[in-house]
């Protein structure tokens, strides 16, 4: 047990020493929210379909952006790099299994992603008076589930690329469609219905809808949760199947 904690502590320290990761995960989403809120019309009442303010819709979007940054951008090159540099191999010669290192990376990135979500909620509340989620339990539950989806997707990118560089390339290419489905360019709730139907089938599109429902006090639609769950199980299964230790 103490060995796993030592690994976790070391990996948390290492992540805190990566200024780029810290910026993109913890600061960038909140910064983007702050910038979006500078546009006066986004703060005007009833500018978005459904009656809310556009800035209200951007809070879940930037929360999701933090998850994408942690799970899909920062995690894959780290994992692929650990394999490429033989760190996992070295670990397999000790009494601790290399999977402990992967687990630690997933945990610290998950924690950073959730912390980023909290920062976004606080910034939205303080700067623009965005109400905190009206159904906190549903919001937190959705957040945990979609964080898991983002992490296993990142693990899959690491599993399928041979080098850290390769996984960075794949992650960068994936970023644009993933950010689109999360609603970074147009919030999912503002999309035309036909497009929204498709986007809701993606994990971040479904998550965006679920978070939106939870922030206005409701419970996420079961179909949204089911879609996230299916993606998590499938991506997790494939990455576990394909991950190479060396």
């Amino acid at each position, binding site marked *: 047990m103490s060995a796993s904690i030592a690994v976790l502590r070391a990996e948390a320290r290492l992540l805190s020493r990566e200024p780029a990761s810290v910026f993109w995960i913890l600061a960038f989403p909140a910064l983007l929210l702050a910038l979006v809120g500078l546009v006066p019309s986004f703060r005007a009442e009833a500018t978005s379909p459904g009656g809310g303010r556009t800035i209200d819709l951007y809070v879940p979007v930037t929360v999701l952006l933090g998850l994408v940054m942690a799970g899909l951008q920062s995690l894959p090159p780290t994992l692929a790099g650990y394999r490429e540099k033989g760190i996992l*191999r070295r670990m397999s010669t000790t*009494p601790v299994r290399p999977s402990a290192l992967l687990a630690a990376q997933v945990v610290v990135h998950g924690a950073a992603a959730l912390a980023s979500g909290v920062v976004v909620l606080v910034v939205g509340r303080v700067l623009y008076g965005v109400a905190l989620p009206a159904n906190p339990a549903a919001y937190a539950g959705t957040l945990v589930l979609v964080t898991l989806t983002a992490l296993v997707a990142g693990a899959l990118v690491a599993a399928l690329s041979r080098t850290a560089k390769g996984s960075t390339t794949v992650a960068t290419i994936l970023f644009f469609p993933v950010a689109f489905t999360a609603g970074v360019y147009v919030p999912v709730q503002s999309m035309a219905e036909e497009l929204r139907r498709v986007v809701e089938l993606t994990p971040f599109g479904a998550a965006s809808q679920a978070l939106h429902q939870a922030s206005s006090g409701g419970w996420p639609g079961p179909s949204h949760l089911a879609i996230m769950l299916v993606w998590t199980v499938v991506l997790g299964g494939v990455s576990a199947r394909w991950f190479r230790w060396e």
Partner: protein
Amino acid sequence: MAIIEVDRLAKSYGGRTVLDGVSFAVEEGEIFGLLGPNGAGKTTTVECVEGLRRPDGGRVRVAGRDPATDRRRVTPILGVQLQHSDLQDKLTVREALELYGAFYPHPADRRELAGRLGLDDLLDRRFGTLSGGQKQRLFIALALIGRPRVVVLDELTTGLDPNARRDTWELIDGLRDDGVTILLVTHFMEEAQRLCDRVAVLRSGVLAALDTPAGLIEHARNATVVSFTPSRPPGDDALAALPALRTVRRADDGRLVVSGTDATVEALMSLLARDGITAHNLRVESATLDDAYLDLTRGEH
């Protein structure tokens, strides 16, 4: 009882045979060298000992256990330095020692180990900023941190400058006193000659020789070579009668080159003295492990 037993070890990758029935045993407290050209199967052999690879055939035991299947019992007593393996660039030396120390039930004293390996002044340095020699010293420290009974070092000094190499040798020599068993993969003959009690030479996946460094040298084809310009040529019959003679050659410049063992040289000297022949520009060269190794791995036996 041998602490490392390798018995008829066989391994192939995709139909290409890498190891074909390699057997040796390493006694507790021994420094055992594994030599051979690139591709001879040295690293594959130690990877089987480390439990990183499963043999296709044969048996490997470390302290009586199978390293590939009995990981839980083997890893705590095994310290490993791998050939191509780094640490996280931003991990400091102190953190690396703490982290790897936490993996073992009874880790070595970190401060004492750092002092012994000259890492005292580097504790706060990040791995990525260390020189090759400093990294290698840290890897040795990590291999020792669990107080292992067996240490496997794979090409420990490759890429080090001669000074760092010598320092590393002294460290390994120092481990002898602790009774730690060391399996050392190297392609530096000087390293093997200096450190190893016994040496196994691998050639294309089979064991070409297994002996002490001195024993291997003795069996080199030209163990000792004497060359000189005689004041007058000694008789051919007398030369041919020298004990343990290997070769006699008359060079174009009139030099006589005789190879054999120490006994050959002694007999030659008394022959010259008896016949009153003066040996000008006398040179005696002893074979090194290099010569023995080249003989073995070129397959001229």
